[in-house]
């Protein structure tokens, strides 16, 4: 009681105190900015003082590379075996021997795979899901993307089990040893989830070369964190009574884990599996830059050659694959959460697993047929559609008829919004930023947060990346701002009307599963390369959490409170402003936080369309295989994300505590 009393006493005073502090701080930073002739080192980090972290990292990586090539080579060889098998089975055929007496065992027939996909969908979620999943695969086949899509699928099918097993064991370890979780696993997961996808590729490229194996390793590392988190969460949420029961039944520690806790946590684990699959798909597409091949590579080639039609086609195939995999794994997760339903047990395998048996039989039959009927082995040319010319015509039509409008919009945006903000950001004194972020950290979370925010910002400056960092902050900030500006009102409308929510939900669900690559394609067709394209693609990618969290936050305000407001005579507007909004604010802030993080991830990928920020730095490092440069830039990006995330979280936690 004394605590709350002193807290409420202390509250009114510091608010004003903090206002004064902030005013002074801003004035000081402004002074530094105005005096930049006198204090140039405070605005632009002096080149002479740059710490060559990049060189050190490069040296380290080279050391590893030259001393451990036996290790990397054997890893490549070992992992290559299952990967080659999966790729051969799905996409490439098996070639045994050489030259004239080469024996070719065919890959699985596309007809069989489509039917198997349909059966899997039907088993997991009924006819509708079956039709959706089967339809997606059929679409891929008919639109001529079969081989590429199966390459992508093959990589995923090997990477995902690896992620699941690793994630499970790491998660169990972290759950068993709280110190490991706190000191090791949690920070590592945070870092892994904010390091941009590109940055993963660089060390893999260096260590394992340009090959599907190195793409698969990058994918596996990138997609593991959600499984670790899901395992930790699932295990810690097992009801304590079930834990007690396992003790009372006399389980040994191992029996308890494997026979009681993990099975009870299965619904949470399945959610993790779904996330792993979607992240793996996202990463496999991006890893096409280091030799993954498949759909991502098609998009990449088409984008480089500015063949919009082809890029669009491959992009849509990615969308189809993403939707099929997402809906399928979600349905399976849901089935697990619902629990089992009584079924007659039957001794025969066929009766117990009718869909599985049927799928295997159909795959075998169609593949064998493919030996004699070519239409089963490869999608016949005659039934392949191509929409590429259509897209091309559409784009040309738009550019011819609306060129002036689009161009005017683009130029106006650049001149009036982007360039001024960019100039402001890039001219911002680094010392001032360190100071202000440290101050914000101190106000929101105390000394530790202040130190963290300041230290991470200092890192960006002393590695000589200040200007590029601010270029990233500028694009990411503007995009996140616009995304919030669009997303929050939509979320608001959705929260007020069930009809709107019904329309919005499937759209954002779909947007969310699309790999980030897909967002660039349509925008680049209309706006060509540059900051505007990057911004629009990023907004489209990052708008989802703003909508989702706003809607959710407003909807979870207890109806009793709203009724209380109405009874005391509030108008609709007053109810909204005085009751709903303040209560939903923490949740909305969480949404904005997510939006910022997603915008950051996307901005980096937009380096492909010619931005001039840290992403470009990573991108260049990737093409030059310059590991030090790429990793340091990647870390700088991760640090931007971590600073933003920590400050936002501290702020939200404070707001939550105030609301009780």
């Amino acid at each position: 009681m004394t605590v709350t009393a002193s807290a409420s006493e202390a509250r009114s005073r510091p608010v004003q105190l903090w206002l004064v502090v902030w005013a002074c701080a801003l004035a000081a930073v402004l002074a530094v900015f105005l005096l930049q002739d006198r204090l140039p080192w405070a605005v632009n980090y002096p080149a002479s003082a740059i710490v060559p972290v990049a060189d050190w990292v490069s040296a380290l990586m080279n050391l590893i590379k030259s001393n451990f090539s036996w290790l990397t080579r054997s890893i490549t060889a070992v992992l290559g075996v299952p990967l080659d098998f999966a790729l051969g089975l799905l996409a490439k055929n098996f070639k045994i021997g050489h030259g004239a007496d080469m024996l070719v065992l065919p890959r699985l027939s596309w007809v069989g795979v489509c039917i198997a996909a349909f059966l899997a969908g039907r088993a997991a979620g009924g006819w509708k899901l079956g039709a959706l999943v089967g339809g997606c695969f059929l679409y891929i086949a008919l639109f001529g993307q079969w081989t590429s899509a199966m390459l992508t699928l093959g990589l995923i099918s090997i990477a995902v089990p690896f992620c699941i097993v690793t994630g499970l064991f790491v998660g169990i370890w972290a759950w068993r040893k709280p110190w490991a979780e706190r000191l090791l696993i949690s920070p590592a997961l945070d870092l892994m989830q904010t390091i941009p996808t590109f940055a993963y590729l660089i060390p893999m490229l260096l260590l394992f070369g340009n090959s599907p194996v190195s793409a698969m390793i990058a994918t596996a590392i990138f997609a593991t964190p959600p499984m670790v988190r899901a395992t930790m969460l699932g295990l810690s949420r097992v009801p304590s009574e079930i834990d007690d029961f396992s003790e009372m039944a006399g389980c040994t520690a191992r029996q308890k884990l494997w026979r009681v806790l993990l099975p009870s946590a299965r619904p949470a684990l399945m959610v993790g599996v779904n996330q792993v699959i979607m992240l793996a798909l996202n990463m496999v597409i991006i890893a096409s830059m280091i030799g993954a091949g498949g759909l991502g590579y098609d998009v990449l080639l088409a984008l480089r050659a500015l063949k919009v039609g082809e890029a669009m086609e491959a992009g849509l195939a990615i969308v189809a694959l993403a939707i099929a995999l997402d809906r399928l794994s979600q349905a399976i997760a849901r089935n697990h959460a619902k629990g089992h339903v009584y079924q007659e047990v039957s001794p025969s395998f066929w009766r117990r697993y009718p869909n599985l048996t049927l799928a295997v039989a159909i795959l075998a039959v169609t593949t064998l047929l493919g030996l004699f009927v070519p239409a089963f082995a490869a999608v016949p040319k005659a039934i392949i559609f191509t929409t590429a010319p259509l897209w091309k015509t559409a784009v040309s039509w738009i550019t011819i008829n609306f060129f002036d409008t689009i161009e005017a919009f683009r130029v106006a945006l650049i001149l009036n919004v982007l360039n001024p903000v960019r100039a402001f950001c890039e001219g911002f004194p680094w010392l001032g930023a360190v100071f202000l972020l440290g101050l914000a950290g101190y106000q929101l979370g105390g000394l530790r947060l202040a130190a963290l925010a300041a230290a991470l910002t200092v890192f960006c400056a002393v590695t000589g990346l200040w200007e590029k960092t601010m270029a990233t902050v500028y694009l990411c900030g503007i995009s996140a701002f616009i995304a919030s500006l669009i997303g929050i009102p939509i979320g608001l409308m959705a929260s007020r009307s069930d009809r709107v929510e019904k329309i919005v939900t499937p759209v954002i669900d779909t947007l969310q599963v699309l790999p980030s690559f897909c967002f660039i394609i349509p925008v680049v067709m209309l706006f060509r390369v540059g900051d505007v394209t990057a911004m629009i693609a990023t907004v489209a990618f990052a708008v989802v959490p703003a909508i989702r969290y706003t809607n959710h936050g407003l909807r979870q305000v207890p109806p009793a409170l709203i009724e209380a407001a109405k009874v005391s005579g509030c108008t609709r507007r007053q109810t909204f402003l005085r009751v709903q909004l303040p209560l939903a604010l923490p949740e909305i802030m969480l949404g904005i936080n997510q939006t910022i993080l997603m915008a950051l991830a996307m901005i980096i990928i937009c380096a492909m369309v010619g931005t001039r920020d840290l992403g470009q730095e990573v991108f260049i490092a990737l093409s030059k295989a310059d590991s030090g440069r790429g990793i340091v830039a990647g870390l700088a990006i991760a640090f931007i994300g971590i600073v933003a995330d920590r400050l936002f979280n501290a702020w939200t936690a404070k707001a939550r505590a105030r609301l009780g």
Partner: protein
Amino acid sequence: MADTTEQMLQTAGTPRDARPIKLACRNVWKLFGANAANFICQRDGKASMAEVAAAGLVGAVRGVDLEIRQGEIFIIMGLSGSGKSTLVRCMSRLVEPTHGKVEFEGKDLLKISDAALIELRRHRMGMVFQNFALLPHLNVLENIAFPLGIQGQDRPTREKRAREVIELVGLRGREHFYPRELSGGQQQRVGIARSLATKPEIWFLDEPFSALDPLIRREMQDELMRLQTMLHKTIVFITHDFDEAIRLADRIAIMKDGEVIQIGTPEELVVSPATDYVAEFTRDVDRAKVISARSLMRACDGAEHGGVVAPDAKISSFSADIVSAGKPFAVVNGSGKPIGEVTPQAVIDLLAGIERPRAGA
């Protein structure tokens, strides 16, 4: 059913129980917080509520002494947070007591090895949980057979045993249902069957029926009594509900703030509560069902008797007869000798809740 309850109470309520002690707590403490063990050792196992609170500790169980006899239904009661669950968890060593001894058949449970503890839990202890704690991924049969599987029994043996207990708790036909497909009462039957599958000697039930609605709860109480007449387990049973306690209990321990305030038969608690707190607990009880003729009788004053009753007969079992007869009933002991009488007026007073100084007391 009511008869069996009363028979049980009669046999068990006899003072000076000769049955061997199955489980005993000797000055058991459980304190939550930093350095709790030091705190209580330094004070030699004695500390007041205020001292505990001043040290920043939570006194979940404080200085509990009790003995539970073989074949007894021992009920632990108290308000929420009074430490009932913690005490029972100390008895089964699910939580490690901070201080004191728990003796299982005279052996100190806290000193035995982990392997011995696992062995003990596998074969001699069973527990039923408030929220059933069924494994969601196993069906009824598999859930019930699970503890046997843990012991390493092969599938036919454990399924045979599981079917036996399914029969016992009346769940035949549901063997292949999953927990989600069962009602609360059915789920708890599975929980009971599962804990019985290993033929435990001592059976812990932590508010097993609290999550059920009143009708089902009554049905489950009857079920428990039926099982007990067949199985004769030593039962430690936690409940909030005094009516449930008097229906089932041989003896009841009342807890408050981690301490056991009074241990006694339901009648002892009603007739002579140790503190106001206990009196408060027993206030709304249907006294006629708890109080026996022995407590209400007075010395015979020579009037004509309308009938005879045993000293342990509950008032409710003859109240209608005595009121309609309008004459005192003689209380006779085992050899048929009258030892006192109960007047209709005393019974009416008791039923009406009027306290009058008892003439023969």
